[in-house]
């Protein structure tokens, strides 16, 4: 098997005495768009800086391909990578000079620099801004320059630290889809950090979740979204309903779990008496006027106690002994009259309840 593009062993970073990062092992294969997800201060930016070879780790090894990175080859490998900083700094020259900085550092010939410049200026809509100075840009314009100067390098590995912040919604969505195309077409390996679930889901296949400097979950995006490794991860990925309960009896593969105020049939192993935590995503809760016959096993009647608009999607809070959050479209809300006080039925499939033994 070919060596992964990037491999990390026992990587540690310690700042003024406290361990900021502590990663046993991490690998990245070519062409696998991966997102790093994690709360503020969990060490994501630090990891990216280390992977870009910009800081010396306090301990541990980094491999690019077969080679361990050391003082001798670090410039070479650092030029195979481009890192987009979360807090960009612009050099006090023109936007143009800022964008071509990396190519100039690599002593790329002029005509190719011009070509690259044209390309990214188009992609990031910077044509009219090239002769401006960075401090004359708006926040989103500046971020586009920041993106452009990383993308122009076409590195083997692109590390993006919150690349879409400050971008307006239209540009963001356009950019995400063109990035997606570019990533699949050129199999440009991309590792990025974002705090927005949709961006993560749209761009990445693999999701690495960090907590307190450690990787706590690493798998497919879908897997992380459906089966978060714990409470904190669950909160992070937007699971609003988190219930604690106990297995009452086994029903073959499934089990009946009693929670405060009700009971669920869930897909969980474990003997009766075991404590479990149930995670239910609001998108997985089906709302209807009455119980409909379908494959849905868990039905609860309840009263809507809160309605929050998310634009044209709405987040409902249902009281049916316990609180259950459900996401509905504006259409459904109108059709079903889902306002505070309305009595409705909520259905949850056993398979979409993620149960974790405590």
């Amino acid at each position, binding site marked *: 098997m070919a060596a992964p593009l990037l491999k990390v062993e026992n990587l540690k970073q310690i700042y003024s005495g406290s361990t900021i990062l502590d990663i046993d092992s991490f690998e990245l294969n070519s062409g696998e768009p991966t997102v790093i997800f994690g709360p503020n201060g969990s060490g994501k930016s630090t990891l990216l800086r280390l992977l*870009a070879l*910009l800081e010396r780790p306090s301990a541990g090894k980094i491999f690019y391909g077969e080679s361990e990175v050391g003082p001798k080859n670090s410039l070479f490998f*650092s030029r195979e990578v481009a890192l987009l900083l979360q807090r960009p700094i612009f050099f006090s*020259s023109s936007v143009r000079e800022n964008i071509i900085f990396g190519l100039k*550092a690599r002593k790329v010939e002029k005509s190719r620099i011009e070509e690259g410049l044209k390309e990214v200026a188009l992609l990031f809509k910077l044509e009219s801004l090239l002769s401006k*100075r960075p401090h004359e840009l708006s926040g989103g314009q500046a971020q586009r320059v920041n993106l452009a100067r990383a993308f122009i390098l076409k590195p083997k590995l692109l590390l993006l630290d919150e690349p879409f912040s400050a971008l307006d919604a239209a540009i963001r969505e356009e950019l995400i889809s063109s990035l997606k195309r570019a990533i699949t077409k050129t199999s440009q390996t991309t590792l990025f950090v974002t705090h927005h679930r949709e961006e993560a889901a749209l761009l990445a296949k693999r999701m690495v979740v960090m907590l307190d400097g450690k990787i706590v979950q690493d798998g497919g995006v879908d897997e992380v979204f459906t089966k978060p490794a714990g409470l904190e991860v669950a909160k992070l990925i937007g699971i609003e309903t988190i219930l604690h309960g106990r297995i009452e009896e086994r029903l073959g593969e499934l089990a009946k779990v009693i929670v405060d105020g009700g009971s669920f049939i869930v897909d969980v192993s474990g003997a009766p008496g075991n404590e479990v935590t149930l995670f239910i995503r609001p998108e997985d809760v089906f709302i209807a006027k009455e119980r409909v016959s379908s494959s849905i096993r868990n039905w609860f009647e309840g009263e809507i106690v809160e309605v929050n608009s998310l634009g044209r999607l709405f987040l409902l809070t249902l009281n049916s002994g316990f609180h259950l959050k459900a996401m509905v479209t504006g259409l459904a809300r109108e059709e079903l009259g889902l306002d505070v006080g309305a009595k409705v039925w909520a259905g949850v499939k056993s398979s979409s309840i993620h149960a974790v033994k405590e």
Partner: protein
Amino acid sequence: MDLIIKGFKEAAKILLSLDSQVVEITKLTLKISGSATLVALLIGIPLGLFLALYRFPGRRLVASLINTGMGLPPVVVGLFLALLFWRSGPLGFLEIMYTPFAMVAAQVVIALPLVTGFTMAAVGALDPDIILQARALGASKAQALLVVLREARLGTLAAAMAGFGGIISEIGAVLMVGGNIKNQTRVLTTAIVLETRMGRFEAAIALSIILMTLSFTVNYLLTTIQQRGSNNWPRRYLR
């Protein structure tokens, strides 16, 4: 007032006649202070960078010494170097006392703390992540340091100007180790003092004008580089 006007007239005459003596002195002045500035920059800028960028035990002490070095009296520098360079001194065998070389040495000692100290201050005031940013885009360490210097140019060029201005106009040290010997170590400042002591104020003024023109020209050029593209300021936040 009279004297001042007479001085300017005399100055014009001397300048226009391009007195060969004056031309020689001017050349020597430029050579000595120019090379001293160059040496001071070549040592001071890397040193300033190093002190600004690296933390090591005793760094603050070194920084203090550099800063206090800005207050090194030229006469004292001259005196100590003289004590070293005199025949009776430990470096007497080099036989460099009363040579332009000794003068360059003295001026380097004077300019170095200025250049180092201000490079340190200018670089230290930058956003530390500027190096990170340059390296993130693939700059080598050397390239990143160049970026740092470019971003700190307001300060470092001011340092160069202060250094050059300080030593081209300095008298205490060059007089002590150079000796103001005609055709050998006489530079503009020592010539000015001599003319003044001889009561020939017009000539002194004329030489002063040459000296100032020289330092003005050099510093004007440097200011132009320094201020190039530094139109960051101001937005209208204070109006």
